[in-house]
């Protein structure tokens, strides 16, 4: 009896919500039924909220701008740096180090990953050294690279490449081994050579993993370039941060951090865009924001 009553009470509600749910669209996003427009509005709203909390916290707690500047001071510093043209030059240099280092690290990781992924013998011989190299913090090796390759951009490119290399390598190896066994056997039954199997099955199967590695790599590349510049440089955003640190310009430093974050976000988005085009058959990159 009681259950019948509660069912009857619940029924009108269920009927009322059903048409509303049908109206929101044919294919709701997996994380909640948010339309792209609402999603964007939420993102902007949250950004405004963060800035507002930051601003009023600084004002109410009377924090010295020398220690922790408010958003307005940071914005002012940013505009100044852009207008004077000072930041453009340094962005160019750091961006070059990021992209060149990423390119070298990614290519090296891909090639070595492809070799190791193909042969368990090569894995047994080479991989321990790769892991040993990876466990050494690159920050600790950076001074050596500066010693070897100079204060110029070359040393930063090398440091960045060593950081990018590992996630790309590890993902390539795992990816090349991810192809289902029956798919490979089917190819073999049709008299496929190992090269056919590699090109037609293993490599395409590896691509989603490779792109996950590249995505981690491009974000780490920003860190690599800045670390390199911290150790010893004559230009670049990392150099600029140190310079402003010496002159106690906290707002100026924050402005550079904003620029760095923007660089990271743009690079990540470009990578995501390319990945979606290339590996169109998976939805691995429709919402990728995982770290290493």
């Amino acid at each position: 009896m009681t259950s019948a009553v509660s069912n009857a009470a619940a029924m009108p509600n269920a009927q009322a919500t059903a048409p509303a749910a049908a109206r929101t669209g044919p294919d709701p996003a997996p994380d909640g039924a948010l339309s792209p427009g609402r999603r964007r509005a939420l993102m902007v709203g949250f950004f405004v909220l963060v800035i507002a909390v930051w601003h009023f916290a600084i004002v109410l707690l009377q924090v010295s701008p020398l220690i922790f500047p408010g958003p307005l001071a940071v914005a002012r510093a940013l505009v100044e740096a852009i207008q004077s043209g000072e930041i453009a030059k340094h962005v160019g240099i750091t961006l070059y180090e990021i992209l060149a280092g990423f390119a070298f690290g990614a290519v090296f990781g891909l090639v070595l990953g492809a070799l190791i992924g193909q042969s368990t013998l090569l894995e047994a011989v080479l991989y321990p050294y790769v892991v040993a190299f990876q466990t050494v913090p690159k920050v600790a090796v950076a001074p050596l690279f500066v010693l070897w390759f100079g204060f110029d951009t070359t040393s930063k490119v090398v440091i960045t490449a060593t950081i990018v290399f590992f996630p790309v390598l590890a993902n390539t190896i795992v990816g090349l081994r991810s192809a289902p066994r029956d798919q490979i056997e089917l190819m073999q039954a049709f008299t496929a050579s190992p090269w056919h199997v590699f090109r037609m099955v293993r490599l395409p199967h590896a691509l989603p993993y490779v792109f996950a590695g590249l995505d981690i790599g491009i974000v780490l590349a920003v860190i690599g370039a800045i670390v390199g510049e911290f150790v010893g440089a004559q230009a670049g955003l990392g150099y600029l941060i140190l310079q402003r640190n010496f002159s106690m310009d906290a707002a100026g430093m924050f402005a550079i951090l904003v620029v760095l974050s923007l660089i990271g976000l743009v690079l990540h988005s470009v990578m995501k865009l390319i990945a979606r085009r290339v590996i169109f058959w998976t939805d691995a990159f429709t919402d990728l924001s995982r770290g290493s």
Partner: protein
Amino acid sequence: MNMPLTPAQALPPAFSFDAVQKVFRSKDGADVVALRDVRFEVRQGEFVTVVGPSGCGKSTLLRILAGLARASDGRVALGGKPVTGPSRDIGVVFQSPVLLPWRTVLQNVLVPAQIQGRDMKRATERAMHYLELVELAKFATKYPSELSGGMQQRVGIARAFVNDPMLLLMDEPFGALDAMTRETMNLELLKLKARTGATIMLVTHSIPEAVFLGDRVVVMSPRPGRVTQIVDVDLPSPRSLEMINTDRFGIYVSGIRANLNAAGGLD
């Protein structure tokens, strides 16, 4: 005891097993006999089905014929020549369609032609021909993810036919499909067989399916995997779904089931 073999015809057999053994070494080092003294031969153009419970070695038998596994002992011949590895004369269909998700339906069907370096223009014509036979020509430019399970398996069948193989090997091709789709697929396969005249060996664990499709049914039992019976199915062709409800069909099915029960039972 093996049943007497069918007398050799004028043509050489499409394939033959002679005293075939397969022994696996298990992880604890003990030898497991997967196949013992398997011997039968199949005429060209014959549809032979192999039925038995899981673990009876029927898939192993198919893998040996496909050149994906090697017999420990005995002789396996394809068109009179010993099998040494995968052959261009064989088309295979597995239980899962294993299509390449980044290739369209047509590109998937063309995979064997591409591997074997065939003339792609002619292969494309053939691919479209077989896609028409499995009623998927309209879907040639679609991707596998846009197709149902039954449609994907039909793409796999068209792919197996694309190089006009002498022999088609099917390892529980409809095992993952629902009962209704499965019946439709059985009928389509028989039509395809009638139109191409291909020799087919199909492995299944469904006794009715084995009787419905096969000109002959090879019955296998586990521990060790061996052939316990070879049944000539004398049912009128073309076969129809109504036939499944007839007494004669029922007698074949219950006869095979009784044989399997006596030999250790269906698990």
